[in-house]
């Protein structure tokens, strides 16, 4: 179901070569475009369409095509519509241009994406560590990073139903895991 895009938006989209517009619901427009035309689209949307608010930048990794998809979510307070602009960049080298000069909140989103996916944004004010300040490993949201493998290597598991605990429960005793045969509390008694 494709609805009519408002004329104001349509005029903006006409300026961008190779853009594909999907107007799936009343307040949501999805556009797919070439990566190099994205800054122009953001400028035009901000200047002519009233899309002042960059809600978020999301990143999707596509291992089959070896690409990152970046989605820029833009919101207009005047027409109360959301435009999400989808671009794809090659995973290697994984560099793109920062849109910090157009929307300053982009600085945080790009820093976050750099931390989680390893995409580098040229011209961003800070590409330093953001939330994972104590993380030295690879970008953890990448598909080739095995979370489970890392967890198994790093942490030890607590057995849920060891035999000694079952025996203690049958006797009606309340026992801590540390008080089990291998637990530290047992040894110090």
């Amino acid at each position, binding site marked *: 179901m494709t609805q009519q895009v408002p004329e104001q938006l349509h005029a903006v989209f006409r300026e961008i070569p190779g853009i594909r517009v999907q107007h799936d619901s009343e307040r949501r427009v999805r556009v797919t475009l070439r990566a190099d035309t994205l800054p122009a689209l953001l400028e035009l949307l901000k200047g002519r369409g009233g899309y002042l608010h960059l809600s978020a930048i999301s990143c999707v990794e596509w291992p089959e095509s070896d690409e990152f998809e970046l989605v820029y979510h833009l919101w207009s307070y005047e027409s109360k519509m959301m435009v999400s602009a989808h671009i794809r960049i090659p995973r290697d080298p994984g560099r793109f241009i920062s849109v910090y000069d157009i929307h300053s909140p982009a600085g945080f989103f790009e820093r976050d994406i750099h931390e989680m996916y390893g995409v580098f944004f040229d011209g961003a004010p800070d590409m330093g560590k953001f939330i994972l300040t104590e993380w030295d*490993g690879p970008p953890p949201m990448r598909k080739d990073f095995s979370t489970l493998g890392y967890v198994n290597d*790093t942490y030890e598991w607590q057995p849920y139903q060891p035999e000694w605990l079952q025996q203690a429960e049958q006797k009606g005793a*309340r026992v801590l*895991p*540390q008080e089990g045969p291998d637990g530290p509390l047992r040894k*110090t008694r």
Partner: protein
Amino acid sequence: MNQQNFPVQVAPLESCREPGPEERSMLRKVLDRVGQYCQSRSLFVLHYCTGCGAIELPPSMTSRFDLERVGMQPMVTPRQADILLITGYLSVKTLKRVILTYEQMQSPKYVMGFGSCTINGGMYWNSYATVKRLGDYIPVDTYIAGCMPRPEAIQQGFLDLIERIDGGRAVAWKDYYRNYDRYLGHQQHLFGRDWLTPTDVVGEAAHYRLAGDGTLGPHTALLDQYAGYHQAWGVPREQYAELEASS
């Protein structure tokens, strides 16, 4: 036990042994009994509310279930609290803060692990950032299982802890001193070899006469090696390595 590396003289094992319960004098037994009873009836709880479990505490504390009936009150600072309540999951970053908080508390201190996350990571079991077993890093007195435990379960957990304190069985805090090397080893495994806290746990262990075979070891030996890090507190790890190389 390697005593040479430490400025604090750790007393030999024989002299710091605690007299067993049956070896105490009658007066001491009575006094201990009264002390334990009083201690178990006046508990101040410090909430470490980084997980979702914090939402179950207001009903437990306030008029609906009213924890003050059993002599418990919330407290806002670690140094005046008896119980450290860890309500839910801990990430590697928050675990650091928990350990710093725990070491500031005065003995005797008790830790309650709240919810499945403190036992085995809970629903975040396969997350790279979430700590799985809290009991590896600080000694835990009681766990409350559940995701989330209801206020009734929380109260049951507190009553269980009260019973343990009353019976003189809530002694996990002593284990931190006796087996400090083991706890520190787990901490260093996550935070790196240069992990240091401002608290001199080895010195405290000697002071409380709780130093045991597991107090010093290969992991506490690393503390000495990185002791200068205290002066360079806040210097990033790479820069510190440069400083160290140049000095």
